[in-house]
């Protein structure tokens, strides 16, 4: 699901109010999700027999997080879920739109599945709109304008995740 950049300003105001940092909101995306000083959180995972560990970094509650390149909606990370899991009481959509985002740590491009979490009500905070390579609804596989809760038990959109589902063939 999607909104639009300038809507951020309204939300950003309340963020500014919250953090008493009005006037510093140069980067709306960062401001929106409250990432004043973005902590680098390395996320390491056991790989399948590879000699090194796969790596990524960044703040999954920041709109600038690398996986969110084509996201448009409320970040589940702020809603009781995480960047790849849903808030309690919701369910994850089975069909969705995808983006291709570059992990700045390993330089690889990954296919990211923006599965929506469905049910309850809209989360309503940490609205993040990046829209890179987002397309109108005639390219439904790449469109975040469609309510992708359409295949779920509940058609009510709550928030959006960003899940690594594979490596992209090419940038």
């Amino acid at each position, binding site marked *: 699901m999607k*909104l639009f950049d300038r809507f951020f300003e309204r939300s950003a105001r309340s963020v500014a109010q919250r953090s008493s940092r009005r006037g510093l909101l140069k980067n709306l995306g960062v401001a929106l999700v409250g990432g004043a000083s973005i902590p680098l959180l390395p996320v390491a995972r056991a790989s399948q027999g590879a000699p090194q560990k796969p790596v990524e970094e960044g703040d999954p509650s920041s709109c600038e997080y690398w996986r969110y390149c084509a996201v448009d909606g409320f970040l589940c990370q702020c809603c009781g879920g995480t960047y790849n899991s849903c808030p309690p009481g919701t369910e994850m959509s089975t069909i969705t739109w995808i983006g291709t985002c570059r992990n700045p740590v390993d330089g690889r491009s990954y296919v990211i599945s923006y599965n929506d979490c469905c049910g309850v*009500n809209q989360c309503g905070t940490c609205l993040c709109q990046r*829209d890179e*390579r*987002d397309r109108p609804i005639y*390219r439904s596989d790449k469109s975040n*304008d*469609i309510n992708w809760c359409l295949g779920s038990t509940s*058609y009510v959109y709550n928030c959006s995740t960003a899940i690594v589902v594979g490596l992209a063939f090419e940038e």
Partner: protein
Amino acid sequence: MHRNLSARLLSLITLFFIGVGVVNSSLAGDNAMPPPLPIEEIGRVESLPASYPEDWVLVDESSFMNMYGGKVIILDIAETSHPKRMKGMMSKSMLGNFTQSSARGEFYIIESFHERGARGKKFDVLVIYDKQTLKVIKEIEWPTDRLQSLPERYSMALSEDQSLLYVSNFNPAASFTVFDLDSREIVETIGTPGCVLTYPTGERSVTSICSNGGLLTTVLDKKGNLKARERMAPFFDTDSSPIFEWPVIVNGRAHFPSFHGEMHVIDFSGDVARYIEKWSLVSEKERQGNWRPGGIALTDRDDRGRLYIIMQPDGKEGTQTHGGSQVWVFDLKTKQRLRIIDIPNWAVSLAVTRGSNPKLVITNGSMNLDIFSANDGQFIQTVSDFNNITPLLIHKSY
């Protein structure tokens, strides 16, 4: 003004006040004073004119923060007194879609519900409203999943004679349903594989836009049943030269702007859509400044057929729906730009009202409406505080 006085209500109220300290005002006159105010009717409900004034608009409030609460709000955007602006509203649940018939005096909303809020069986309903009373004339349970997305001007459309209503479906197989507005019955649901939306074409055809960069025209027979399908070859690349699905249709010609500022002209006047030509909205210099179209409902036309389009500077991949700082006005015959209107509070969507003195209505960056004179670009006023959350699409009234 429709007076809906109910004697039953009055007697209920009268019963209610027995013993509450009420004196009928007609018994309490005083010679030195004016007589007391009379008891008033209870139960009166207002109604609206058969023909809406030119400055009225219908705001498609998608209510993105709370999708149960979407609505269509009828507003007089030229009215300077806030309390007089709002004329009424209709509810529109879960990103419901709206269109209207100028000839029939009817509004059409297709909306979705679960049996219990976000839980239970989900179902879609087409609702027909009377435009004067805003009362529901009929509700029709829908046979499939209607398209549920951010608002689109062509998620529904009427046939040229306004006897058929076309309704987009998506689940995620795409189709549209033909609804007969005379009999108020569903005619048929017709698949449009890989293609979405319902652009009215010719007398009884429907054109949809496809994932391969082409178009699909579905030709209907007199009753609205499928007669033929014709695909138009791709004319754009959905990855490298995508277009907006928001055409302006003038004299049967649909004008589709591309992300990068080209204008594709398609003939929608015949039975089947035909490609005519493309031209550029931007000069070479403007192209170098990355002036591009941008926004949600980024295009509309006035009664004279002039195009209004939101433009953004420094456009790049990812900014296409973010709106812009100017509206450009074009003569579609000469392909010349007539005027640039600077939009001080950012523009996300636009609409143009009817008549010889049209108003340009802008959904601004704060989700309020900025009103301009369309003829000279003069700012008139900001309209806010009408229960607006995300008024992403504005419709003309008739």
